[in-house]
């Protein structure tokens, strides 16, 4: 983990209330897909965590959905502004376990980290399928970007206005055979994926955070391997260690 002052290069709405922000600066401590950064925003006490969506030549991309005052404030920032960020946070996804044909499953604001992951897996010569779930056609983002690198991209929308009607789990048959699963999304989705897939996999979780780097115990969750901090022992947990608060 390092502290870095990142300059906003661009900040644009790419789907309803969803923004892509490109940031420039020292990103050296970002080591893996699935890691996140933690942004200090003027007027807010706590930092805001966002997954790294892409990293190319020190240009870091995040994609965020406006859900509250902090993200609303972010949406008003313009190119040239500088943000104080903690970067290289979290364990990130381990790509060596993926097998030849990993399946990536993302839901809504959980889609972003899968993009950097897909790039890493593809660069290792793997055939990547991505299932990306949204509520409606207007929420869909990065379809083209994923199609540019993945072997196959399946979109699901709850109302059927784009791709398959239904949830990401409704697209599993369509997705065919896969060697491993990487997923990120709302907890209900993770739970459904966990109970439906027939391989091992890695699941990325969200939790309200105090620090983001392991100091405060604010983000702990119980796993079958003991208590873990989502921010530093996670956000990625292995399928085998997950202990759902209520039975899945």
């Amino acid at each position, binding site marked *: *983990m390092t502290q870095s002052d990142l300059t906003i290069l661009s900040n644009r709405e790419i789907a309803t209330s969803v923004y892509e922000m490109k940031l420039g600066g020292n990103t050296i401590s970002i080591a893996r897909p699935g890691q996140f950064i933690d942004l200090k925003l003027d007027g807010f006490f706590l930092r805001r965590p966002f997954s790294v969506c892409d990293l190319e030549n020190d240009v870091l991309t995040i994609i965020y959905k406006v859900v509250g005052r902090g993200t609303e404030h972010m949406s008003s920032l313009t190119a040239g502004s500088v943000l104080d960020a903690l970067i290289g946070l979290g364990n990130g996804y381990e790509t060596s376990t993926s097998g030849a044909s990993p399946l990536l499953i993302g839901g809504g604001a959980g889609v972003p980290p899968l993009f950097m992951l897909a790039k890493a897996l593809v660069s290792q010569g793997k055939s990547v399928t991505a299932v990306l779930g949204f509520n409606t056609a207007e929420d869909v983002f990065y379809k083209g970007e994923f199609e540019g690198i993945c072997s196959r991209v399946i979109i699901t929308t709850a109302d059927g206005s784009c791709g398959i009607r239904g949830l990401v789990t409704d697209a599993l048959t369509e997705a065919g055979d896969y060697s491993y699963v990487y997923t990120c999304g709302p907890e209900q989705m993770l739970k459904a994926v966990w109970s439906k897939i027939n391989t091992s996999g890695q699941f990325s979780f969200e939790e309200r955070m105090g620090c983001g780097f392991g100091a405060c115990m604010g983000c702990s969750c119980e796993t079958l391997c003991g208590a873990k901090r989502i921010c530093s022992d996670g956000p990625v947990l292995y399928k085998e260690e997950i202990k759902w608060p209520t039975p899945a």
Partner: protein
Amino acid sequence: MADTRVTLCGITLDNPVIPASGTFGYGYEFAKLYDINCLGTFSFKGTTVLPRFGNPTPRIAETPSGMLNAVGLQNPGVDAVISYELPRLKEVFFKPVIANISGFSIDEYVQIAAVLDKEVQVGWIELNVSCPNVHGGGAAFGTTPDSAARVTGAVRRVTKKPLIVKLSPNVADIAGIAKSCECAGADAISLINTLLGMRIDIKKRSPLLANKTGGLSGRAIFPVALRMVYQVYEAVRIPIIGMGGVAGTEDVLEMMLAGATAVGIGSANLVDPFICRDIINSLPAEMDKYGISRLSDIIGGAH
């Protein structure tokens, strides 16, 4: 040269800056970020007899200029602290550390203190008396002068290390409680712990924290903390570790003028992990600005 040293219960600190319990783990997460030997000392995570997971999540909420936490004393238990955490800390921190301990009965406090009394790395024992007293009906030990004195007195008998009692601010008469801890044998008072607060999730129509209430910390509480340090300074003769909302070098000076010998920094570490190092580095220049050559000279200077 600006002299930043202060003396806390006979042990001289290079400077008064002390990361507060619960915001600095057992130290080595921060040791990866900077050399933590620059600190006066630090207070490690509140430790209990048995390992605790703490409360269900969400445990954290944001508030104007502050935050709520309801971590609920997650810690590996005193045995693991001694066998695992302290040896790891020894590799990166070469000064005496403050052992922050919590119990749900007087016996538990006594038990942990007796064990930690034998650890050479432990310079001071800090009793967090803001825990619910399960045997006394659930109210915290720290909310009446009597219960605070009882736990202080009991622990006093099992340790020769300097004994710090850390008080809860959720009381009407902080000075009375501090005084009764002093009488019961406390060597220092540390204050304030968090103010009890709440946030509500409007969409869900329920408290945002799974635990419903949480402890308010951060800049918002600075004026309350400062007032309590000022009041306690007039009531006791033992030194005070002042904390609550400190987030900059001038805040450290205000706390000391109010009566603090050393100054704890909590939540600010979570938002800016380098803040204690940065404050320590800026102390000499800030002292110059206000014509202070020996920092210890200003303790209680506003009285």
